[in-house]
């Protein structure tokens, strides 16, 4: 009896090791991702729901059910189909790119790169958000241009720097050739069509819920589930750090995002917004389709305008959706352009009040956090990772800590401690009264 248990746990351990993939064991797939086989194994090890019948752990039933649209109820066939499609490289022009290329199972369902690489090695402009928990977001993409997972799933397939298929028709043809007719008829009761492709992928993605972190145990009453530093960090999160204003975590919205769009100044480091805005309006005058918007958003300079490209609202210039806090420890690099490598960099960015620009969200201001307080907040953030990825989380924490020890490129103590004010240099070309 004991031996059987031991053998079984040994097998599980091996499976986990193989599945979650250490660098050594992994085979490289195209474009820097793990191979599709490795990823499939990793997925198997996570033992996710196969038929979507049970509410995933960590999420409230009403919230979960509310996130499932009426025309795409979950069942085993749809999930299996979607899973297959997620790894289906036939959906790309040269057969090398699938969803899983940039949303790699073994890399926290993202690609751990600043921006993603697609067809022909082309680089996009935006960091790949993690598929984990994406089902619970109110909109998809950094600029929220997709209303749902279904809506999002269909766009990269047709994007020239991502999967690069010419048209929906071509996608259908490729899938027919790969033998998808029957599975679709079984899953959706109709002929293979593009919208159902989107639905199936979305159905699979809805099983990717990872909300069982040490922080949840702490919220559940287990005081010792997170360290004292992390507890202090949580206090700061709700208080001096002002994080809660956009990243509140609660039952109806467990992800730690307000699903709104804010300009926190990340893009202001690069571009002149006003010139870009004028250019964007001119381009969109010629062709204002969704596809064009998608191309512009991911593939050009205009990407930096963020939500503005969708709403043309003055308030949305350079604004991107507040990203989720869940599993943030393992989804580096951060921000819409992946420009922040570690959580310490993220803290430095907020601590100094973002980056001054004409459209900076008024809620961003210098926080005057001390080094110790930053450590506490970072410790807290690392407790938000699902326990299935605990090992990866620890490894990431060590890696980021080492990197942050060497360089803190966004750190600015004068701004953080309000010795110099945000806008002071821009407005005055120098410090007020010689600076104090």
């Amino acid at each position, binding site marked *: 009896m004991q031996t059987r248990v031991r053998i079984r746990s040994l097998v599980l351990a091996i499976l986990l090791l193989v599945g979650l993939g250490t660098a050594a064991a992994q085979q490289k797939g195209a474009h820097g991702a793990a191979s599709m086989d490795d990823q499939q194994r990793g997925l198997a090890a996570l033992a996710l729901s196969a038929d979507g019948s049970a509410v995933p752990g960590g999420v409230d039933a009403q919230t979960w059910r509310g996130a499932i649209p009426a025309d795409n109820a979950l069942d085993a066939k749809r999930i299996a189909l979607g899973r297959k499609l997620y790894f289906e490289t036939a959906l790309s022009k040269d057969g090398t790119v699938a969803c899983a290329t940039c949303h790699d199972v073994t890399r926290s369902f993202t690609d751990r790169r600043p921006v993603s690489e697609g067809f022909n090695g082309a680089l996009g402009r935006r960091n790949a958000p993690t598929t984990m928990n994406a089902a619970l977001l109110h909109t998809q993409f950094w600029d929220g241009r997709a209303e749902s997972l279904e809506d999002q799933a269909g766009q990269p397939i047709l994007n020239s720097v991502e999967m690069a298929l010419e048209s929906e028709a071509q996608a259908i043809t490729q899938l027919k050739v790969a033998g998808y007719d029957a599975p679709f008829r079984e899953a959706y009761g109709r002929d293979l069509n593009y919208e159902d492709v989107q639905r199936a992928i979305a159905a699979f993605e809805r099983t990717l819920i990872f909300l069982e972190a040490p922080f949840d145990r702490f919220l559940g009453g287990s005081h010792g589930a997170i360290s004292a530093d992390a507890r202090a960090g949580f206090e700061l999160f709700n208080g001096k750090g002002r994080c809660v204003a956009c990243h509140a975590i609660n039952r109806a919205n467990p992800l730690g995002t307000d699903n709104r769009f804010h300009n926190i100044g990340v893009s202001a480091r690069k571009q002149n917004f006003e010139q870009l805005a004028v250019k964007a309006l001119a381009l969109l*005058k010629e062709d204002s389709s*969704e596809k064009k918007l998608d191309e512009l958003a991911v593939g050009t300079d205009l990407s930096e305008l963020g939500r503005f490209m969708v*709403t043309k609202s003055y308030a949305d210039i350079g604004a991107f959706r507040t990203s989720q806090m869940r599993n943030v420890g393992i989804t580096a690099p951060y921000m819409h352009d992946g420009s922040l490598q570690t959580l310490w960099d993220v803290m430095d960015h907020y601590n100094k009040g973002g980056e001054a620009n004409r459209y900076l969200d008024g*809620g961003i201001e210098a926080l005057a956090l001390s080094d110790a307080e930053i450590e506490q907040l970072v410790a807290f953030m690392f407790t938000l990772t699902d326990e299935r990825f605990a090992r990866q989380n620890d490894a990431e924490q060590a890696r980021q800590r080492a990197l942050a020890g060497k360089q803190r490129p966004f750190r600015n103590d004068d701004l953080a401690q309000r010795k110099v*004010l945000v*806008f002071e240099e821009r*407005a005055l070309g120098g410090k007020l009264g010689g600076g104090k």
Partner: protein
Amino acid sequence: MKSIETKYMEEREAVLRALARLDRRAFLKVSAGALGAAIAAGAGVTPHSFSLVNVAHAQDKPPEGSPPEGNPGTKAGPSPAKPTLANKPAGFTFAYISDSHLYKRELNDRFVRSLLRAVDDVNAMDPQPDFVLYGGDLAQLGQREELDLGAEILKSLKAPVRMMVGEHDWYLDMGARWRELFGEPNYAFEHKGVQFVVLNSVVEEDFWTPAKLSPMERMQTVAGLDNGKQRPFTVGEEQRAWLQKELASVPKTKPLIVFSHSPLYKLYKQWNFWTDDAEQVQAILKPFQRVTVIHGHTHQILTNRIGNIHFHGMLSTAWPWPYAPQGLPALTIQMNRPDPFNPNDGCGDGEVLVHPDGLVDKLYKLWNRNPVTVSRAYMSSSGKQDSPLAPNSGSY
């Protein structure tokens, strides 16, 4: 014949349909701000103001003589050329920054930061405005260090600055430091065919001597908006006489723009959104065909028209005020309730577009929001045309 609003809404609908696929699922939910899509579809865009502003302009030519009271349909239809700042005939613009309420930086940097942001905004305008009006309440408690700090910051404005005094600047030393820094509080000047007059309209009857208040106590009494110990604002007999004299030689057809800190009408006495001798001041202004009053003190979008006088409030850089429980002019379309979690919400700076006929469009450049324009067509038609958007979260 379709009204401007109908045409505008139809144009917007067409653009939005073009933006999305026809099925409901893919229809992009865009906020009210996406009316700007209408601009993308057809209107001209100026380099520094790409907003709804210009799309909504109904007519190029305002009605001559007295403003129309009747049916908007009887007036000239929309002009084919969409007016923008770039292509309009000689008129001019000036910017405004107002109500900064500075403390010394070591005590409170938030208000300093906001004023810096406003200066940055105005300096980034392209083309630059002809001048910048500072609308009063530069300091919070009238202290020398506060006024000096404000003066230093305003020096970095590229365009020339015209200063106006507010009660927070005045009641500590009764304007001593203000005069040293900025000269006399009331003055007049002419610019491109428009007569400008700047008033000190925060003159209060002496309440401090009988109460034996120290200067700081006096200042703090006036600084409390809801402090009933102070007296109502006035322009005062002396200044009214000065105003009468200044305007005596100005032809009645010349456009007149008055800068005043208090509103020059009576809105809400409890908060001194009030000028006690408003009727007398208005009587002096009445003979002029085109009069606009630009006032501070109220920290919100405020619009009024009394006879032929148009009144526009200015935004504050420091904080917004709630709308008064009574007395709100009918023409005022409130701004959306500010979000307390964004300290810049409900604040901002702005611009006034002075058209060749002397009437103005008032542009409120709210931070983190779409700008709001209160156009001369709206004013001239007493609110029947070209109405700014109604708020979706009104005051409580």
